[in-house]
């Protein structure tokens, strides 16, 4: 009886969470005449393939839209933001955890709070800043602004990660003949590798997911990122290419979901630090 309830609950949760993805999947591969049947026609079951699946929408997406271009743009931004974030947040996190002493924790909380300041509060002043810098409608705007979201969270993440790595190895190296700087350059990197990896992955997922700043700064279709281009520019006038749209959503979601699955626990540690012990 208990097992039945458990499986029923699990099934319900999975159905709710996964339903839109099932819907993406089935839409992406349905033929148009199977797809566009009004829901008032009860004899036509929309949940299944009534006609054989087709790759037409996928071909349309990769052949006749700017989707490949958006993927490329996204990758450019991902790499640039990842590099900036690692270069800035990792030393900062190290500094807060190891060097600046007692006020490191408070400063860390302060930096983390800036992560809570949402894009929707800042896009108005940013739109002005970006036009002053002449970066409007360019990927440079995104590369400049995205680190404002990745740096606070990743600094916090690295700081928390380093807290869980004992100091003693670094102190030992100082006693064994290294200066503080040599420890930072030669010993610490080996110890922070998993933390750096988490930072890279977080930057990657954030860039792929971001919508608000992209919407504010980018107007040309060929400069868009995936998360902006798909919902905004795949719609031609009033005509939605639902098949291609859902294919794009599906192909973007899958790699992200896989990455999330692998790194979820590390992110969660970042969010719950303090509230959960250990």
């Amino acid at each position, binding site marked *: 009886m208990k097992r039945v309830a458990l499986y029923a609950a699990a099934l319900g949760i999975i159905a709710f969470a996964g339903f839109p993805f099932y819907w993406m999947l089935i839409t992406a591969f349905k033929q148009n005449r199977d797809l566009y049947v009004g829901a008032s026609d009860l004899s036509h079951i929309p949940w299944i393939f009534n006609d054989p699946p087709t790759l037409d929408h996928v071909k349309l997406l990769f052949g006749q839209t700017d989707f490949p271009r958006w993927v490329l743009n996204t990758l450019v931004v991902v790499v640039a933001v990842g590099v900036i974030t690692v270069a800035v947040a990792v030393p900062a996190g190290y500094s807060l955890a190891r060097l600046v002493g*007692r006020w490191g924790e408070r400063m860390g909380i302060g930096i983390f709070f800036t992560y809570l300041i949402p894009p929707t509060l800042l896009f108005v002043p940013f739109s002005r800043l970006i036009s002053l810098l002449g970066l409007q409608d360019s990927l440079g705007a995104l590369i400049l602004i995205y680190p404002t979201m990745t740096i606070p969270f990743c600094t916090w993440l690295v700081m928390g990660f380093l807290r869980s790595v004992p100091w*003693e190895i670094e*102190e030992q*190296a100082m*006693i*064994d*003949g290294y*200066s*503080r700087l040599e420890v930072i350059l030669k010993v610490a990197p080996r110890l922070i590798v998993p933390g750096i990896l988490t930072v890279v992955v977080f930057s990657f997922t954030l860039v792929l997911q971001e919508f608000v700043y992209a919407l504010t700064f980018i107007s040309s279709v060929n400069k868009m990122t995936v998360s902006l281009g798909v919902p905004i520019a795949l719609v031609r006038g009033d005509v939605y290419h639902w098949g291609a749209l859902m294919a794009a959503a599906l192909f973007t979601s899958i790699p992200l979901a896989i990455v999330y699955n692998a790194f979820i626990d590390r992110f969660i540690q970042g969010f719950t630090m303090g509230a959960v012990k250990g």
Partner: protein
Amino acid sequence: MAGIEIRSLRKHFGDLHAVDGVDLSIRDGEFLVLLGSSGSGKTTLLRMIAGLERPTSGEIHIGDQRVDGDVPPRARGIAMVFQSYALYPHRTVFQNIAFPLEASRTPRKQIEEKVRWAADMFSITRYLDRYPRQLSGGERQRVALCRALVRDPKVFLLDEPLANLDAKLRNTARDDLKRFQRQIQTTTVYVTHDQVEAMGLGDRIVVMERGKVRQIGTPQEVYEDPVDTFVATFVGQPPMNLLDTGDPSLPPRTLTGFRPEHFLPKSVFGAAEDLRTFRFAVRRVEYLGSDRYVYGSVAGSGAPAADATIIAKLPATIALAIPEGETHEFAVPRRALRYFDLDTGLRRKT
């Protein structure tokens, strides 16, 4: 080789006075143990000697050099072994031991020789190619000692190096450590909260509490002549019995203290012994193999503290039956009695 001089050393973390004015003179070649519970400041003191913490005020001299201010750890001529051993996880045992030598740019050949020599001394030669995670706790501890040894330090600093070993291993490791220190004759400062380790290892023991030194002395001095009630109850297991006997021959507000092993049935003492006898109401007897612990209270003295639990420790050689729930005649030789001021806790000579 060098002694260490510490003068009115303080370390404050905000309002917390972790080390609160310590003066200490450590002799060349001495094995000194810092003994205290957690938060007593013993580890902070050690870390200041190492240069990992900067003192708030005071002086530290190693040999003839003053090191407290601006001398970084690497320049102090020290070696340290941490409780966790702090082995570099991505380096083999050989590379771990060689690390301090590489850092000081020793020629390759000399490194090789030195590592082999040290590894030989701790018989870990056959592990040299392994990684730390492939070693047992005892082996790791020896690797850490090896690494400390190859530097030829003026001073060894050891922070609870045995705490992570299981009880059986700890005994042999303690013996190894002591022999090793006698052999190389290097000044050693050893931090522990374990009084058995402290008694067994130290030439002298420094008992610390709340950032202050309570007593410095040989293990025997600390055990037999504690300067106050804190040391009397902190050192020794079970702790020294303390009670206010209300004895009119003593000054008022005096605590009488005696070790459990001196508190024995009156009948076991010889007639010539000058004894102080007590009526001991026995509550419970604990049989521990080599000893019996007898718990009870001293009846009829009338003083308020007389209800406190008093423990007697009877060696197995005393076969006398001690029924629970009865009152017995127990006694302490007068030479084993110690007196303390009830208010200040300080030793009182009577």
